[in-house]
């Protein structure tokens, strides 16, 4: 999540740098890019995202007389809405990197959500009693497990039986959606366990001002620590170091974005109705109008941040991640190098399923119910997010942060069009067009890079 804020700082700095010396503009820019080791693609995506944000805000401002995109409330909501797609998109990166596809994520999400709802609403209360603190834990764990098992099963069919992933997951798309319908006989199961529903966000499902500051400061410490460790490692082996100004610049951008995002989510207060409820419950004397309670980070956003960090770690720092990219680059070479490519494939799909289970938690908790069409069409948004984020269908290329950014782009488009009152039909057309356009840009970029 911190990427979207970082955008602002990063972009403006680049602009001042380039604006300063017109003559050796290119030289400066290239030097800046090399010193900071920032990827051009990343800058491009950030620019696109900013354009979308500012564009929608200005459109609202000029045409409707009320710009509502760049408000704390909208950005907060945007971050919550991005969470479910973003979580799955990080897994889809690995799937696409290894030249597979997973069309079943939306259905797995629906199925897991339905299973969790049944477990926590129909089954567990009978044995543990309504509202028992174990209910949500059992529900979540079983949801994640079911997701991982379904994914692993898909992976087995792909890797060991040699059925193309497109077919396996196309079948999965239908099978799990149908299974979810059968399980609940088409009913909507609601409401879910009250603790469980906090995982979906909302005023109570947010960690408030103090908690957000703690998280923000921890992230800043993490950024600085990572940079220090990296620098020391490079020194130990006499590798070229980034210039000091570049290190400080990157550190400031990272921390600045984090702090900015914390301030943003803290400036969005609870709605008056919730405050009244809260005041009544806690016997507060102060008039309701004077109480300002910050939302702070919503729990789904924290989940997305945690997943993003964990998945980045997994792809860049572990053998598994290395194998995923090696298989994507050259499956035959990976096999000859002694990698058990089939088993890695099973693990990738199981991980994808696990993340679908996690998204199912977020999505059903947010709606406070499991409906039969939960997650419908999500597969397309997830694939789009990964692809917009620079994951290549040719295999071997893709990043986690790109996919998360891609998810933010998709969600921004969606939210923006809702805010300015576009039809659902037009929304679909725009999203589809943008997807094709983004991939075209990407293809051109790669062709030029060669």
């Amino acid at each position: 999540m911190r990427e979207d804020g970082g955008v602002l700082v990063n972009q403006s700095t680049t602009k001042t740098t380039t604006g300063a010396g017109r003559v050796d503009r290119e030289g400066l820019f290239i030097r800046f890019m090399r010193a900071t080791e920032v990827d051009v693609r990343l800058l491009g995506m950030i620019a696109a995202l900013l354009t979308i944000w500012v564009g929608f805000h200005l459109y609202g401002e000029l045409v409707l007389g009320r710009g509502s995109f760049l408000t704390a409330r909208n950005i907060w909501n945007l971050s919550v809405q991005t969470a479910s797609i973003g979580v799955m998109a990080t897994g889809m990166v690995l799937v696409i990197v290894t030249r597979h596809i997973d069309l079943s994520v939306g259905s797995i999400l629906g199925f897991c959500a339905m299973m969790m709802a049944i477990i926590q609403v129909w089954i567990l209360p009978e044995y543990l009693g309504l509202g028992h603190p174990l209910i949500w834990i059992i529900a979540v764990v079983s949801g994640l497990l079911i997701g991982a098992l379904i994914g692993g099963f898909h992976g087995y069919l792909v890797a060991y039986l040699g059925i193309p992933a497109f077919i396996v997951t196309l079948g999965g798309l239908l099978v799990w959606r149908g299974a979810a319908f059968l399980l609940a006989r088409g009913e909507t199961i609601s409401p879910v366990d009250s603790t469980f529903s906090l995982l979906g966000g909302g005023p109570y499902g947010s960690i408030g001002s103090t908690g957000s500051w703690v998280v923000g400061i921890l992230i800043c410490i993490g950024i600085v620590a990572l940079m220090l460790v990296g620098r020391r490692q490079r020194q130990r082996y006499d590798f070229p170091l980034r210039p000091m100004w570049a290190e400080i610049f990157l550190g400031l951008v990272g921390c600045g974005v984090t702090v900015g995002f914390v301030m943003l989510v803290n400036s969005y207060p609870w709605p008056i109705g919730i405050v009244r409820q809260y005041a009544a419950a806690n016997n507060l004397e102060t008039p309701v109008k004077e109480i300002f309670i910050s939302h702070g980070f919503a729990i789904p956003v924290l989940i997305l941040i945690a997943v993003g960090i964990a998945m980045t770690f997994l792809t860049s720092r572990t053998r598994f991640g290395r194998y995923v990219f090696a298989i994507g680059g050259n499956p035959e070479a990976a096999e000859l190098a002694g990698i058990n490519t089939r088993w890695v494939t099973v693990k990738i799909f199981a991980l994808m399923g696990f993340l679908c289970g996690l998204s199912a938690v977020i999505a059903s908790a947010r709606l406070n119910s499991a409906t039969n069409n939960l997650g419908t069409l999500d597969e397309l948004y997830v694939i789009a997010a990964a692809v917009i984020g620079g994951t290549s269908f040719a295999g071997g290329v893709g990043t986690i942060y790109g996919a998360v950014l891609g998810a933010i782009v998709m969600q921004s488009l969606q939210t923006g069009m809702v805010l300015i009152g576009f039809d659902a039909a037009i929304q679909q057309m725009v999203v589809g067009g943008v997807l094709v356009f983004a991939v075209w840009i990407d293809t051109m970029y790669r062709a030029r890079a060669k």
Partner: protein
Amino acid sequence: MSDTTHNTPLVELRDISIAFGGIKAVDHASTDLFPGEVVALVGHNGAGKSTLIKILSGAYKRDSGKIFINGEEAQIENPRDAKRYGIETIYQTLAVADNVDAAANLYLGRELQTAWGTLDDIAMEAEARKVMGRLNPNFQRFKEPVSKLSGGQRQSVAIARAILFNARILIMDEPTAALGPQETEQVGDLIKQLKKEGIGIFLISHDIHDIFDLADRVTVMKNGQVVGYAKTSDVTKDEVLGMIIMGKCPPGAIPGPGALQTA
């Protein structure tokens, strides 16, 4: 097969056969290799050299026949098994993962890890710099994906990977095919150096000069069968060419099942 039978061979391939869809790519072929020896496998395209060698390296599963390593029967079902026996292979196709860098390729499948169980990229890169420095001192592009490298550079990565892990048995399938004259010479020097270290090398090559320069013995194949075995000191280049083209076994060679029956 060989006349040096008083000690056990490092590798012995005995009666290996494999068929692809009814075509016998390798038909009851046998050969062996002693420590510190270079055995060249020669023959036309499609003679079955690469296929035979891929069975030893675990890339193909044989239909019948046995593999002995140091006189003991070895179970080689996949590339991981082969590596456990100290068999390293440089494939004709190079088989490098294009989108990761040189260090990642050198350690692919056997990554160095930190105490935390994470990849130790820096240590791997440092080690890669050492190996590559020995092999190809001009090589500097450690940070770039292998796809950006030239053919010769990719070749050095593939060779470095094979020698990095103290292989006992090295299989080189056309190791100099993509190389210029200078790099070819480097590979030749490398082969001689590895020989001194007691490594056994199977060399597949089309270059008859290379073969006589580097190999101690040749095993000639034709249509999946072994034509014959010979010490390079006992036969001439023309005689070996005769074996390759016509399957005719000269007096200095030991005929195999594929030898032309002289009536």
